[in-house]
Each structure stands twice: as structure tokens, then as C-alpha cells.
């Protein structure tokens, strides 16, 4: 079967400004694709291009095997949920949901049937006769979803649909969208600047920056094997520690030397990686630095580090120290006895370390 | 075909207006500019003959009066209307209980035609039976108020009537401006113990600079286009003491049959408007794009 969405060599310019450069993405039926990146990275423009709301400047695009490059939005068999929800202010909730069917001349009885089904799915039956102005943010969000669901399209498009909600509601709706996706088995493209949303929802993530795709992969791939410094820094919270270091060949492995403000450098030995250049940036997730005293798994190496700040956060305790001239955060077990201003023996999990070339920022291992 | 139509509907909808503006605004300005450079009299001629019409214009004593009247009238009208409008706005900004009613009273003249305004003030200011006669009737036998028929003073009656008509509008603009100043800044000043008048002079009025500019633009625009008011109030008289460029242009075009003079005086009017509007519009459009 053809991929549900296939984008080849897509370019988008506004005048002489290149907004999107050589975008290639394809997803299968049932995939949940998340486009993530900082604001201005072109992710919303890409979504608008997929919807046909923005003409593309080069390349082509197909939905379910049919070329859509020059097809208008209404003929693409898509539905879209917008950041501001874009509910029609003068229409009731019911009319908002059925407007598309009305425009298409769908029979009234079919309209009623679909409306009832969607309203029941989203539990918005009591709201059907209200106007958008009388709804809360979460309710508007549901109506906007309803307007998309009723289309039963080949492809759902979401443009930062949760960013106008408060934190609690955002988590609730996130779960709801995920369960909806699992229930319907529908294909979705979802834009967000929130990397947690991306991680939790996606089956496939596209990380973008400056109109260029930085990495495509499953959430796990993106998280554990970021393709470059940008992805490493952008995905994950707290961010991956990126520590400048010097390397030296050491038998079958590599010896890694991290400078410290005071005292001797930390020296760790990685037995898996060879042929690293002399200067590298070592990427370590905070959770891959553990309290040595509290037991550990995997191929770890220990080092004494001076802890500057301790931040208890309930389930975890974050410890911040200075390594290689950078603030380095470790996610320690809540029971740690790490104390600010004192040295603590920490275990570094070298099996999960990433190496990056300092100048190009590209991944080395 | 339908695809093309779908994509180009917005342009097609705009097209008639676009063509209309090109012809009836810009085309016509070009026509007038062209004719102002010819020897046209009763009928337009199209052979360019230099600035002869402008020479005639600026050597005509009637135009001289009209042009200097524009500056006298414009200056007094704009300054007084703005000062009065600002005072009224500040007075009304003091939590007046009957604000709605008072605002309605101050602003209603703006709904009237200038012809109506002119007619009313012509009656009030006429020396024979109007204000002068009334005050004399009260026992002030020597009271004289004959500006309307006094060639040296008649232009000031136009100023009075114009201010009466427009100052309420300036008040409304300023009042909206006063209300749009961030109340937190005002509260902060009050907490700091700054007296009310200082809050106005040091914080609120400087924050309203854009409103002053808008008011100035609108009033100067009104002043340059003033035509109806002069026609109804003084008819340009006594003699042509209260002529403005607008009435001069009209007289040349429709009663004197001197198209060349009409065109050149219209062009001068437009240049005066441009001198004021172009920098304004330019900065407005630029700030919108940025």
C-alpha cells in the first residue's frame, strides 16, 4: 500500500526567503507524525503546505498515493484542528461541526447521524446549541476536534492544538488525543513546539530547525540517538548535558577526559567507541548520571564530583555541577544524600553516551 | 478552468475597484495636472505650455487672498480646535456622571452638513438682526459685532463656525486616547504621590502623541477641503475676502469658465495635502509592515 502521506523534495519560499528546504517525509496508515521545533522553524508552514493552504515552491506531495501538489484543500480529504480552534463564531456548536458537510451537500439525515456520533464520542452533546463564545477553552478544543472527526478524513492535521490550554487541561487533552488515535487508527500529522507532547504522542517525530529537517525517527531513536547537537539539546527536559571533552585511543576503547574548574580532570573509558577525533562534545542525559551509592545498572564508571546545587523535585532530585565549563545536571534518585558544596560519587552510564563533532555538531557514534 | 477561477476569485473581486481607483483617482489627478500645464480656458486644450497657469495663479490677488486665508484659517482652526478638544476631553475624563449626555451635546454638530452650520451661523452673526442686535436690545447700545460683513474680520467667522462644528470630534478622539493610556502607569504615578495635573502633563498627554497626530491630520484635511462652510456662511465675501483655495477653484471651474486656473489651483491644493499626508501615510504603512 502506498504511504498515507509522502513528501518529496519540498521547498517553500516567500519571495527570496527560503522557509522550507528539501523536505522529505513519508508516513504509513495509522502513523502519528509530530513536527517539532522552535518557533519559526517552518513546522506550521509545512503543515499548511500539507493542507494545501499554502502553495509549495518546489517538490511534490501525495496523500494515499494520489498526487496533491496542486489540489485545493477541500479535495485533499483532510481535516485540520487549529491553534486558535478557528470555530465559526456566529454558528452553534452543531452548525460548526456540520458546516463542512453542508457545504458538500451531504444529506441532512447523514449529517444528523454523524453529528450525534461525534458528539457522543467527545461528550459534547450538552453543548450542541451553544455558540463558541459561551464555551471554555477545553470545550472549544473538543468542538474543534469534533469538526475534524466528523469528516472521517484520510489524514488529520493538528496545528499546536493544545498550546492555548492551561497546563492541567493540556495534559488531559494530550491523553485524550492519544487514546483517540489508538481508537480510530487514523493517520495524523501534529505540529508542536513542546517536545514532551512530541515524545508522548508520536509514533514518528520530525525535528526541524530553520526550515530544514534535523532528524526523523521514533521518539526513542530521537531521544537516545540524537542526530546532532540541536536535536540533543532540544529534545528532553532537563536537556541533555553537552560537555566538551578530549579523547585518546586506549586499547580497544577510548579514554575521555573532561576538564574541571578545580582539581584533576575526570577520566572515563568508553570500551565501545573508537576512532573519535581529539575534541568531541559528550552528550549525557541527566538520568544517565546516577548516585553511585544507590546501586546502578549497565556499564558505568564512577567519578567524584563537586555538587553546586541540589534541586529536589519529588520523584527525582536534580544535582547541578560544573564539568568542562558547563553546568551539568544529574537526575538522581530522591533518596540521594548529595549535598550542595560537597563532593559526591557519581556513576556515568557510558553505554548511553552520545558523541558530537564540535564544529559541525553532527553525531559521531 | 474552475481551478483557475477558484484561485483568482479574490483578484477578480478586487479588479473593478482597482480599475476605478486607477481611473477616477490617479487618472483624473493626471488629467488635472496635465491641463494645469496648458492654456485651457473655457475648453480644455492639451498642448503643454509650461507653468503659465501657475504664473497667472500666483499673480492673481484673489488667489493671493485665498491662499493666505487658507493658512490663517487653517492655523487658527487647527490650534483652537485641538486645544479646546483637549480641554473638553480632560474635563470630561474626571468621572463625570452625565458624561454620555454631555458628550452627545458636544459632538452633535459633526453630524450636520456644513451648509446647515453655515446657514445657522450666518443668521446668528448677521449684524442687523442677530447677536449684535440682540445684545444691543439688552441695553448695550454700542455693542458691535460685524465680523461677518467686515472684510478684515470675516475669515474669523469661518474659524468660529468650523471650530463649533469640529471641536467635539477632537474631544471624542482625545477622550478615547486618554482612556487608552495604560491605567497601571497612572496608578503607579498616583501611588508615587504625583499630583493629577502632573500625571496629565508628564504621562498621559505625551503617551497620546499619535492621537495628536491623527487629530492634526484630520483637521488639516478638513481645513484644506473647506468649501461648503465658506459658501454657506459668507459666499466667499465680502468681495472675495473669505475665499479659500477650494472656493477659488470652484469659481474658476464653474462660474468663470477658466479651466486652466481651476486645474492649477486644484493641483496646489493637492500639493498642500500631500505635503501633510504623504509623510504620515508613509510612516503609518511602514510601521504596519515592520
Amino acid at each position: 500500500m502506498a504511504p498515507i502521506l509522502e513528501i518529496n523534495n519540498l521547498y517553500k519560499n516567500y519571495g527570496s526567503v527560503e522557509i522550507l528546504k528539501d523536505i522529505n517525509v513519508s508516513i504509513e496508515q495509522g502513523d502519528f507524525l509530530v513536527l517539532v521545533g522552535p518557533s519559526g522553524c517552518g513546522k506550521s508552514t509545512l503543515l499548511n503546505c500539507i493542507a494545501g493552504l499554502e502553495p509549495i515552491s518546489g517538490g511534490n506531495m501525495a496523500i494515499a498515493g494520489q498526487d496533491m501538489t496542486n489540489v485545493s484543500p477541500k479535495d485533499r480529504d483532510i481535516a485540520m484542528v487549529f491553534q486558535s480552534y478557528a470555530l465559526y463564531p456566529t454558528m452553534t456548536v452543531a452548525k460548526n461541526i456540520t458546516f463542512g458537510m453542508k457545504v458538500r451537500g451531504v444529506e441532512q439525515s447523514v449529517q444528523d447521524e454523524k453529528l450525534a456520533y461525534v458528539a457522543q464520542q467527545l461528550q459534547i452533546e450538552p453543548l450542541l446549541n451553544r455558540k463558541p463564545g459561551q464555551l471554555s477553552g477545553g470545550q472549544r478544543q473538543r468542538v474543534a476536534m469534533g469538526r475534524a472527526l466528523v469528516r472521517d478524513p484520510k489524514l488529520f492535521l493538528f496545528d499546536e492544538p493544545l498550546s492555548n490550554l492551561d497546563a492541567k487541561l493540556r495534559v488531559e487533552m494530550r491523553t485524550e488525543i492519544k487514546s483517540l488515535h489508538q481508537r480510530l487508527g487514523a493517520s495524523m500529522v501534529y505540529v508542536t513546539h513542546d517536545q514532551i507532547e512530541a515524545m508522548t504522542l508520536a509514533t514518528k517525530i520530525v525535528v526541524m530547525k530553520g526550515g530544514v529537517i534535523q532528524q526523523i525517527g521514533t521518539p526513542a531513536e530521537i531521544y537516545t540517538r540524537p542526530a546532532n547537537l540541536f536535536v540533543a539539546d532540544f529534545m528532553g527536559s532537563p536537556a541533555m548535558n553537552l560537555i566538551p571533552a578530549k579523547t585518546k585511543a586506549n586499547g580497544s576503547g577510548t579514554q575521555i577526559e573532561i576538564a574541571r574548574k578545580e582539581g584533576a580532570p575526570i577520566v572515563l573509558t568508553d570500551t565501545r567507541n573508537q576512532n573519535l577525533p581529539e575534541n568531541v562534545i559528550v552528550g549525557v542525559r541527566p538520568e544517565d548520571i546516577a548516585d553511585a551509592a544507590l546501586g546502578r545498572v549497565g556499564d558505568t564508571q564512577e567519578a567524584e564530583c563537586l555538587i553546586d546545587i541540589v534541586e529536589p523535585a519529588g520523584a527525582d532530585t536534580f544535582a547541578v555541577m560544573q564539568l568542562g565549563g558547563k553546568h551539568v545536571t544529574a537526575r538522581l534518585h530522591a533518596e540521594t544524600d548529595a549535598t550542595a558544596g560537597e563532593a559526591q560519587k557519581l556513576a556515568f552510564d557510558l553505554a548511553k553516551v552520545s558523541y558530537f563533532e564540535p564544529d559541525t555538531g553532527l553525531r559521531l557514534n | 478552468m474552475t481551478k483557475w477561477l477558484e484561485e483568482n476569485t479574490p483578484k477578480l473581486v478586487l479588479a473593478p475597484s482597482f480599475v476605478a481607483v486607477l481611473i477616477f483617482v490617479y487618472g483624473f489627478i493626471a488629467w488635472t495636472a496635465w491641463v494645469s500645464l496648458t492654456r485651457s480656458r473655457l475648453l480644455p486644450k492639451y498642448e503643454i505650455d509650461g507653468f503659465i497657469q501657475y504664473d497667472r495663479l500666483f499673480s492673481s490677488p484673489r488667489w493671493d487672498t485665498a491662499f493666505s486665508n487658507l493658512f490663517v484659517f487653517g492655523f487658527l482652526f487647527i490650534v483652537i480646535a485641538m486645544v479646546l478638544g483637549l480641554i473638553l476631553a480632560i474635563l470630561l475624563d474626571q468621572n463625570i456622571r452625565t458624561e454620555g449626555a454631555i458628550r452627545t451635546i458636544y459632538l452633535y454638530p459633526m453630524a450636520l452638513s456644513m451648509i446647515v452650520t453655515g446657514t445657522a451661523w450666518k443668521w446668528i452673526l448677521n449684524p442687523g438682526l442677530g447677536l449684535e442686535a440682540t445684545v444691543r436690545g439688552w441695553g448695550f447700545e454700542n455693542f458691535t459685532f460685524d465680523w461677518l460683513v467686515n472684510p478684515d474680520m470675516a475669515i474669523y467667522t469661518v474659524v468660529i463656525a468650523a471650530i463649533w462644528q469640529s471641536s467635539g470630534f477632537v474631544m471624542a478622539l482625545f477622550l478615547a486616547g486618554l482612556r487608552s493610556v495604560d491605567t497601571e502607569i497612572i496608578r503607579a504615578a498616583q501611588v508615587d504621590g504625583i499630583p493629577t495635573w502632573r500625571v496629565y502633563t508628564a504621562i498621559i498627554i505625551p503617551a497620546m502623541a499619535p492621537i495628536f497626530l491623527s487629530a492634526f491630520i484630520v483637521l488639516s484635511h478638513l481645513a484644506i477641503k473647506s468649501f461648503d462652510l465658506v459658501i454657506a456662511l459668507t459666499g466667499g465675501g465680502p468681495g472675495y475676502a473669505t475665499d479659500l483655495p477650494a472656493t477659488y477653484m470652484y469659481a474658476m471651474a464653474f462660474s468663470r469658465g477658466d479651466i486652466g486656473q481651476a486645474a492649477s489651483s486644484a493641483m496646489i491644493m493637492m500639493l498642500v495635502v500631500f505635503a501633510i499626508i504623504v509623510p504620515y501615510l508613509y510612516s503609518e504603512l511602514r510601521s504596519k509592515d515592520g
Partner: protein
Amino acid sequence: MADMSYTPTQTGSSAGKIALRWGLYIMLGLFALFYLMPLFVMVTTSFKSLEEIRTGDLISLPREFTFDAWQTAWSGACTGIQCEGVRPYFWNSVLIAIPAVLLSTLIGALNGYVVAQWRFKGANLFFALMLFGCFIPFQVVLLPMARMLGLMGLAGTIPGLIFVHVIYGLGFTTLFFRNYYVSIPAELTKAAKVDGAGFFRIFWSIFLPLSLPIIVVTIIWQFTQIWNDFLFGVSFSQAGTQPVTVALNNIVNSTTGIKAYNVDMAAAIIAALPTLFVYVVAGKYFVRGLTAGSVKG
């Protein structure tokens, strides 16, 4: 302690405050008199007989009310050689204003909708050209327009005046609608496009129902402008097609017979009534139009 020393100054200033308050109300009242006086004089004069006017007291109420002047102004006063009052010209103004207001509002709404929501290359240029057209002194287009109306066979006709008012009203109506629609999120149009609606469907089903306030503002603005117009009326009409403002001016300035000030005033009030009525019933929208027309962009 600080409280105690502060209290006396507070009472002192509140006495001053009361005086200030009175001064304030007196000032406001005097200004109100200044604005009301001409209207008062017009109304009282219109109900006086000519004899009473000749005694020369502007401010006094009429000793005996008479509607003669109103009767004459409506149907008997002379505008030059014709003596039919302002009635036929009043209806001319109605016939000019209604179609001109409706047409210019409708076209302005469509233009504003395109400029604000269907941006394309050149749309901003169009808007700038339009905006600029709002500011030109109309004297600069009078001569060519007179010739153009002649060429179109519309010289001196009511359709001709309607045409002129629509053309030169478009700048403001487009501006009003553009500024209103530009604040409506573009996502609404996008959502409707995805829903399958086209250009006119979106305008009709989504934007027009949202537009009531700006439609009222625009209609009031245009009506006031067109009803009160004198320049186009006097330039492009002929005997029989003149609007009421031109007729009023002719009555006031007609040199035949004795000056009937009461008739002048009655005619002036008649000419002013429609716009005054609009102002009284929809003042809020009137003011909004005025301020929107001046605070541009």
C-alpha cells in the same frame, strides 16, 4: 501617628475638591450652552413670524408658535426661479443616498475581505492606493469627472451622483472593513477552506454574520457623508436633480424677495434632520466611525 498627621490635610483637600467639582460642572455646562445655542436659535427662529424676528432678539422664545415657516420651507420656498420648497430635493437626497450607501458598503465589504483575508501579491499596494484616495482634495477630480459624466451620459442625473459617491466612498468603506476583518484570525478562513467552502461561501456564511457592527458604522458614516455632501451635489447636478444641501444653500442665498430667516432655519433643520436622527439613535456607531476614519491602519 503618621495617620493622624495625614487626616487634616485630607479633609482640607476634600473641601477644595468640592469647589473644584462645582467649577468643573459649571465649565462643562457653559460649553454645552455654546454647542447647543445655534441649534436653539435655529429652532426658535423657525417658529417665529418674520415680524417677531425683526425685533431682533435671537435668544427669546417665540411669542406665538407658527408653523408657517416650516410649511413654506417644505413646499413653497424659492430656490432660484422654482418655488417648491426643499421637498423635491429632500427626496433627491434620499434617492442618491440610499443606493450609494448600499453599493459602496457592499463593495467596501468585499474589498476589505479580500485585502484582509485573501492576501496576494499586490493586495497591499491596492490598499495603499485606496487609502491614499481617501485623502485627495476632491477639487482635483472635479473637472475630469464632469467630463466623464458627460461622456457616460450621466451628467446632471441622479445616477451620475450615485456613481460619484460610490467611487469616492470606496476608500473609506474598504478601510473600515479591512481594519475590521484584519483582526479576525486567518485560521478561520483556513478552517473554512478545509471544510470545503469557497470565496463567496466563506464571506456569506462566516464573515457577513460577524460584521454587523462594522456594517452599521460604515452605513452611518457613508450616509452622513453623502447626505451632507455639497461639493459633488453642486458640481454635478442640474435644476431638478439637486440634493437638499444645494437646495438649502439656494434658498438661503436667493436674492429674490425679502429675507425670510424663519424659512431658512426651518429648511436648514429639515436638511439636518436625517443625519441628526441617525446621530441620536446610533451615536455610539457614529462616533466609532469618526474615530475609525481618523485613526487609520
